[in-house]
């Protein structure tokens, strides 16, 4: 999202801080920000004897992947990863479909009660998950969906924020395209399918990446919903690695954390731009 470069070009302009001082300060802050992550990765590769060494040995003297073996021995990583992947992928796909369709309707179609309906959608963004959690749990219970992955997936399909994003996205597309198609005799469905839908991919990518990121890391809903071990997702499995009194081996727990980070990091590297755009769009659209 690099807009116009705001860095000062006129050399006469004075800065509060010499550029090198500023950059050194930023570098220190970046190091502090990434410190916990670096420490986690390095400790997960150390022998138990070295885990509590201070100063921490960032480069382990005898790197070992024993801790990673320990994770696979203690919890069913593959199963939890499969659950997480299934839940996250289906939610992301579902949100892209529902938000794409609803966003298009709010942006480009005319119907009664459009304004109040859109206001309703926006208003639900304000509602904290925990306020609706008990009734939603009871709804899922009557549907027989508690302790199933489906119970985690279906309620996450409607997305107020995604709908808002896609509406903005379709509003930003030129109107003449659709009008030209209509003059050529295309009906509303044809206009959507042949003209606007093919242009929607980047917007849908934002919705998909945000959904993936949020639901991959989600903790609260699965904690409430999934009671049997075979339905746990990765974050829950990790917290269970700690043991009841935090007695789990530190390297094993951290190895588990590293394993669960991998997909998030992949998404971060691949989808950094859509992620950033999705996050900033909340604040810059005015």
């Amino acid at each position: 999202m690099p807009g116009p470069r705001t860095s000062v070009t006129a050399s006469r302009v004075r800065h509060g801080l010499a550029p090198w001082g500023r950059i050194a300060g930023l570098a220190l802050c970046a190091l502090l920000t990434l410190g916990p992550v670096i420490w986690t990765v390095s400790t997960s590769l150390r022998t138990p004897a070295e885990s509590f060494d201070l100063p921490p040995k960032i480069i382990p003297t005898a790197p070992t992947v024993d801790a990673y073996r320990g994770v696979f021995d203690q919890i069913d990583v593959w199963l939890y990863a499969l659950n997480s992947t299934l839940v996250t992928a289906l939610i992301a796909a579902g949100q892209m479909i529902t938000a794409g369709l609803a966003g298009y309707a709010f942006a480009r179609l005319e119907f009664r009660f459009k304004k109040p309906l859109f206001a309703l959608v926006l208003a639900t963004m304000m509602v904290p998950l925990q306020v609706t959690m008990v009734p939603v749990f009871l709804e899922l219970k009557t549907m027989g969906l508690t302790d199933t992955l489906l119970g985690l997936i279906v309620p996450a399909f409607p997305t107020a924020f995604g709908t808002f994003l896609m509406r903005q996205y379709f509003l930003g597309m030129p109107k003449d395209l659709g009008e030209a198609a209509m003059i050529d005799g295309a009906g509303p469905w044809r206009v959507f399918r042949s003209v606007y839908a093919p242009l929607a991919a980047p917007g849908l990518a934002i919705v998909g990446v945000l959904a993936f990121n949020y639901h991959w890391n989600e903790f609260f809903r699965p904690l409430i919903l999934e009671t049997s071990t075979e339905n746990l997702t990765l974050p829950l499995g990790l917290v269970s690695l700690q043991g009841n009194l935090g007695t789990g081996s530190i390297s094993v727990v951290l190895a588990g954390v590293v394993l669960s980070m991998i997909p998030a990091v992949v998404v971060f590297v691949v989808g950094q731009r859509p992620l950033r755009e999705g996050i900033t769009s909340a604040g810059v659209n005015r």
Partner: protein
Amino acid sequence: MTNTEIRPVGPEPARTRRSRRNRGTGRTRKASESTAATTIRTRGTRLLAVLFLAPTVVGIVVFTVVPIVGSVVLSFFQWDVIDDPRWTGAANYREILTDSTVLVSFRNTLVFMVLAVALQLLIALVLAIAVNGRMPKWLRSVFRSAFFFPLVLSAASISVVMKYLFNQDFGPVNWLLGTVGIPSVPWLTSENGAMAAVVLAYVWQQFGFSFLLFVGGLNNIPQEVHEAASLDGASGVRKHLAITLPLLSPTLLVASVVGIINALQVFEQPYVLTAGGPGDSTRTVVMVIYETAFEQLRFGEASAVGVLLFALIMAVTALQFRLSRRYVHYQ
């Protein structure tokens, strides 16, 4: 959140009910009757709109609107899942408002919110301004990525890591502070230390969000403004206080509203890091809702606490928008 669509102010043109059939040929409206949002109006449009909106609207009604109403209704009943619900009127509210754990959790959550949001906005603002200064392009993107990286990690698993980092005797945090001569801090074993640890763990993860908002907001400030200020002899810090902040105020409003709404719902960090302790010193409202509903199976009281939290979030947000009228400047 406003949108970018520009509409003519005033009443919308009256909708003419068309009984004529247009047999699928999309009649475009004459320019004279077009609103700014030129939309398609044929018989097929309504049907398409209904089909397109159905999944989202039905989903929102089933999983948000009905549950909110349900929560409010449930908060007037006593229900433990085993027996039938019993209407008890305002008894739940009386009970929770005299329950010391609930009251303490509200106090903790408010203290947490003030500390966390203030720290998060301050760090994010300083870093965003610094990153926006002069530097090579690649370096700027390295910094930007670093600051926003924690945001993509799971709060639950990072809280597990933080538990080790904040360990009083062999945690790297105290070791690092020790190298600068600060004596050992009892992070997780004292009431204030635990609150501080929860705030720091939370801010570490969240500040990237505000940071990104501020970077976006700074990019929208015209460069000439800064150049003009500098030519008038304004120095760095003063320039930012007098010029950048007012111009950034809309973004500041969004960042603080979203920051506060999120902070009031904090759960993972205290749940994993301190389990609400020592004592009740880091027990938050959402933790109490979780414990009351899903550990003690007191759904009525849990709903009442949820309704109160919702009311608090609404009140704080409304107050912010009231205050913002005075302090936010739109260009």
